[in-house]
């Protein structure tokens, strides 16, 4: 008898996107474990069309299990509610709309709709996976009965440069990676850099890698840099190819994350995997992702953040400790460790293991 398959359903299937990458890796794992997993989508990037099928044309077996990747509002939810198959949810978190009301009201509206869909799926969902306790709590608050925390699958570099490299006292290169979005609070990083440059590190620079998804907010960030007199020291790198992203991490002296809403915070792990010390704000899922391998601050005041980076510059022993702890932390998320853990959890939830 063939084992029932776990099929993945994803609204938007895009290469290079965190969810797209997670879905592809998970499909390989599911198929490697003897399943016949297919991917159903609402829309897909042309390069991925051979890997997926439109959900409306899905022919499913009665015993199949559906795994819906929930990260935005989508018409697929209405269809899902009427399918007889068992349903699992893989929750990638939905940003609180309040962050987007000011800059992108349409996006905020979509987030509100998505939150309604989260609630509407609660009674239909047998069990859910979240990638942080923070996200799991969000699902539980929406009435989900069974939620487990399991790793997100994403690429990490095979080996980090373990050579101890101190944070320089002058000319430290700060980095943050994440799309230019209000919940990620790049303005706080720019403000902290300005404080550092007016304080003990007048040569500090900042690279912000990330696509310009919210135009008015991105424009305001550039205006802020100009207003604070740091426009020459802040580089807006937009989307970059993987090789350039890797170079950005490897050239950075410190990774500064002051994001207020992250469902996981993959760039924090990516920085750790490359041996870059992390300074982060205690907000949303970031502290649990970073664990004890980052300098986690309770305050994103520019002076406090600048002082934290300065503290690293004057304490190479602390940097070395953070780097070692970061490498250990990142190893937990490496695909060879995270993949089997997620698969086991999923099969157990689907009671197929």
């Amino acid at each position, binding site marked *: 008898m063939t084992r029932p398959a776990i099929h993945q359903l994803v609204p938007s299937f895009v290469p290079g996107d965190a969810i797209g990458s997670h879905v592809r890796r998970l499909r390989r794992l599911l198929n490697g474990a003897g399943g016949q997993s297919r991917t159903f989508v609402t829309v897909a990037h042309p390069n991925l069309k051979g890997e997926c099928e439109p959900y409306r044309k899905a022919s499913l077996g009665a015993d199949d299990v559906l795994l819906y990747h929930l990260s935005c509002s989508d018409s697929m939810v209405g269809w899902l509610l009427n399918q007889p198959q068992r349903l699992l949810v893989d929750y990638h978190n939905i940003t609180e709309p*309040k*962050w987007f009301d*000011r800059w992108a009201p349409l996006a905020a509206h979509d987030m509100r709709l998505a939150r309604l869909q989260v609630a509407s799926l609660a009674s239909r969902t047998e069990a859910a996976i979240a990638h942080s306790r923070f996200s799991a709590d969000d699902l539980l608050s929406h009435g989900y009965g069974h939620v487990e925390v399991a790793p997100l699958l994403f690429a990490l570099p095979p080996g980090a440069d373990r050579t101890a490299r101190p944070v320089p006292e002058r000319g430290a290169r700060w980095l943050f990676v994440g799309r230019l979005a209000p919940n990620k609070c790049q303005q706080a990083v720019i403000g902290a850099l300005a404080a550092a440059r007016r304080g*003990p590190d007048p040569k500090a620079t900042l690279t912000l890698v990330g696509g310009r998804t919210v135009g008015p907010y991105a424009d305001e960030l550039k205006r802020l840099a100009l207003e*604070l007199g740091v426009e020459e020291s802040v580089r807006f790198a937009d989307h970059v190819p993987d090789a350039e992203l890797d170079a950005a991490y490897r050239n950075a002296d410190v990774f500064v994350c002051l994001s207020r809403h992250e469902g996981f915070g993959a760039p924090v792990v990516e920085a750790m995997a490359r041996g870059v010390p992390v300074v982060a704000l205690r907000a949303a899922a970031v502290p649990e992702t970073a664990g004890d391998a980052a300098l986690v601050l309770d*305050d994103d005041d520019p002076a406090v953040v600048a002082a934290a980076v300065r503290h690293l510059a004057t304490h190479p022993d602390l940097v070395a400790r953070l780097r070692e702890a970061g490498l250990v932390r990142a190893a937990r998320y490496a695909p060879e460790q995270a993949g089997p853990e997620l698969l086991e959890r999923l099969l157990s939830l689907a009671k197929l293991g």
Partner: protein
Amino acid sequence: MPAHTAVARALGEEALFEDYPEGPDLTDIRAAVERLAPIELAPGDVRSALGLVAEHATINPYAALTSRHPAITRLKLVTRKLTFFVAHSIAVQVTELAHALLVAGAATADRIDLLEMESNQVRRELDELRRRLDRDTG
């Protein structure tokens, strides 16, 4: 507790090192950063809602050109140049409409505030009359 957790706490408590003198510079930085904070709406908060409208009242006719592919960037640039005459004209009209709506919204908010003040005054006078009536008939 790892040593760096204690360091982070100390940083938060001390807030500043000697190299970061409190003063106009830092105050300016904090104020500038704060200007980009989200506008949170309480139910019925007309003025904050108008603040949100104000953020989008000026329409930018310059569509973004960025793309991962240089050829697409060039194509977008050509398209933008070809259609700018129309886009600019529409942007100006929509911007003017949005600003007129803001003025109307502000006038409505003023009127609501005035009516609330008047109704509060009337309520106070009614309460006073009731008290007097109770006293005179009691």
